[in-house]
């Protein structure tokens, strides 16, 4: 009995450690150019929308600042960026993603520019599917310094565990209502969290330039979350 509880404790510890333990990917080997460039100020460009949902572009834009600021970067205020880019007829990021970015450095003082591409933004079955790709390019060299995508399915199905036809019908109804009432942005915010989880920490983070050996996930991720 004593041995069994000891084994359970060791098993529990192994699970805890393995969830935090390092694997072959680290922030340092996945994103070395972030450590070379050491960007401080990021300019977030309006997303490139490859879907039929016209509002996806502005709505995703509202969700990008927080994860990047929490990672320790200075983010040029996105609402102001949007106003200025609109006034300068530079609101379409498609025009800039392949071009020279030095003008953003001169005008905004940006060290790097964040581009996002929305490939999927839709309700599928009892859930929401988003596929978002982020590319951060140096405003000095135009080189890609961070590149990651997340294909995320937010499962909104309800399973109450009740048996019989009535229980199954109730679950179906609840799942349908849940899906209708949930905004796409919830799935997009989750995708953002996954995408920026492994970004090397910026100057305002206590881990700045000390997180090269922190374990990272692979660059392109696919997740189903409940």
């Amino acid at each position, binding site marked *: 009995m004593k041995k069994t509880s000891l084994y359970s404790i060791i098993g529990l510890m192994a699970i805890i450690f393995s969830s935090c333990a390092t694997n072959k990917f680290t922030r340092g080997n996945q994103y070395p150019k972030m450590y070379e460039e050491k960007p401080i100020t990021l300019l977030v460009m309006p997303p490139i929308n490859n879907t039929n949902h016209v509002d996806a572009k502005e709505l995703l834009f509202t*969700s990008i600042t*927080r994860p990047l600021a929490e990672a320790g970067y200075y983010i040029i205020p996105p609402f102001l960026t949007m106003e200025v880019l609109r006034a300068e007829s530079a609101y379409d990021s498609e025009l800039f993603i392949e071009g020279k970015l030095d003008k953003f450095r001169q005008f905004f003082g940006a060290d790097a520019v964040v581009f996002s591409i929305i490939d999927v933004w839709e309700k599928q079955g009892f859930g929401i599917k988003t596929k978002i790709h982020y590319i951060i390019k140096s405003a000095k060299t135009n080189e890609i310094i961070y590149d990651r995508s997340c294909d995320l399915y937010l499962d909104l199905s309800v399973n109450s565990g009740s048996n019989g036809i009535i229980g199954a019908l109730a679950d179906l109804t609840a799942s349908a209502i849940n899906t209708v009432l949930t905004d796409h942005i919830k799935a997009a915010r989750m995708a953002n969290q996954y995408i920026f989880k492994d970004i090397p920490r910026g100057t*305002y983070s206590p881990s700045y330039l000390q997180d090269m050996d922190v374990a990272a996930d692979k660059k392109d991720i696919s997740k189903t979350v409940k």
Partner: protein
Amino acid sequence: MRKLKLLAICLVAMTFMTSCASERLYYWGKAASDGAFKYDEAAYNYYDKQSPQAICELIVTYEEMVSNPGGSRKMPPPGICAEYGYLLLTPDIDQIFASTATPRQRKAMTRTDFYQYGLELMQKEIEYYPESAQFIKPLIDRAKKRQT
């Protein structure tokens, strides 16, 4: 003795787990159950609805963030003072707030001179984040010129 051993193991596990978790750098308003914060919702609604009510809610959310800075850095998140200040410089914003805000929202505001407060907030952004000066200073100058 066995209890002590178990307690020690639990303590080690807890220490390890807390070292894996990280403290937030900034305060973004109250957290909702789905992981979003008040700022996320207010910013989203402002863009989604573009209504006077959404503007009032965003103003009050900004006010909460700049007057009660939290997180480990104990200062407003980057860009927030500038965004808030710029919003307060919008023509007729004081009238929109006066005619639409709820009593709770009015009570949350410490200032009613929106234009002057807006300029001060934009200046604060430069104080907190000097790297913002290149972009923010011309906006302050332009706003002052527009007023005169």
